[in-house]
């Protein structure tokens, strides 16, 4: 039997797990709480700050990497959770929405970052 290609997805899953663990809580804090909070002046100042940061191309690239890996991480984990929940028979089929979704989200993210 041939070694499975799962190693590839697992590696991305792991890297994505690290990325999501390191960054996502901070992202939630920023976009969910810090930016919307406060009066207009504060919000404007923080928005400018945020826009400046995200607009800088090294940050864009890094952000794209974090997002791409995190999406694969989620896709992989969702796929395996669904398998553990009884969809084991469809393990191959599940790759399409799970990894395909991660790929689509990554392309979307690239387009959005490009526009900033």
């Amino acid at each position, binding site marked *: 039997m041939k070694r499975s290609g799962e190693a590839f997805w697992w590696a991305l899953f792991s890297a994505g797990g690290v990325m*999501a*663990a390191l960054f996502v809580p*901070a992202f939630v804090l920023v976009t*969910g709480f810090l930016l919307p909070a406060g009066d207009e002046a504060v919000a404007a100042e923080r928005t400018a700050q945020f826009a400046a940061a995200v607009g800088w191309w090294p940050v864009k690239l890094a952000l794209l990497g974090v997002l791409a890996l995190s999406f694969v991480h989620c896709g992989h984990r969702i796929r395996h959770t669904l398998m553990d929940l009884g969809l084991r028979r469809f393990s191959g089929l599940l790759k399409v929405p799970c990894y395909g979704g991660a790929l689509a989200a990554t392309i979307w993210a690239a387009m959005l970052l490009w526009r900033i």
Partner: protein
Amino acid sequence: MSGQYHRPHGWAWFLERPGYVRFMVREFTSFFVAGYLIVFLVTLGRLGGGEAAFAEWLGAVSGPGWMAAHVIALVAAAWHSITWFAAVPQAMPIYLGEKRLPAPLAAVVMGYGPWLTVTAVIVWWVLR
């Protein structure tokens, strides 16, 4: 005469042990993290759409519904981080000679420490 007995597997196996429930909770963080990241993409999109679009978006986000959603996202994301880094010493043992770095210490060095630092730096950057 019926030979070996095979016990049936219930679909609700994940309720059978507390550890399984914890496992499922951990795995389900990925649904919330994925959901949040889509919202994050929307946020980036609005940012790309100009100041007015972004301000409007922020206005919407500060509403109670979105606020609640972000609280849930924060809890899920933090739980992902906590469980992920707790497992790192198992998956990546560090040996100093014949001694293995104790798991709690390894988790702090390789996980919780960097995580809290990254979070603090990002928050500081926005707040400063």
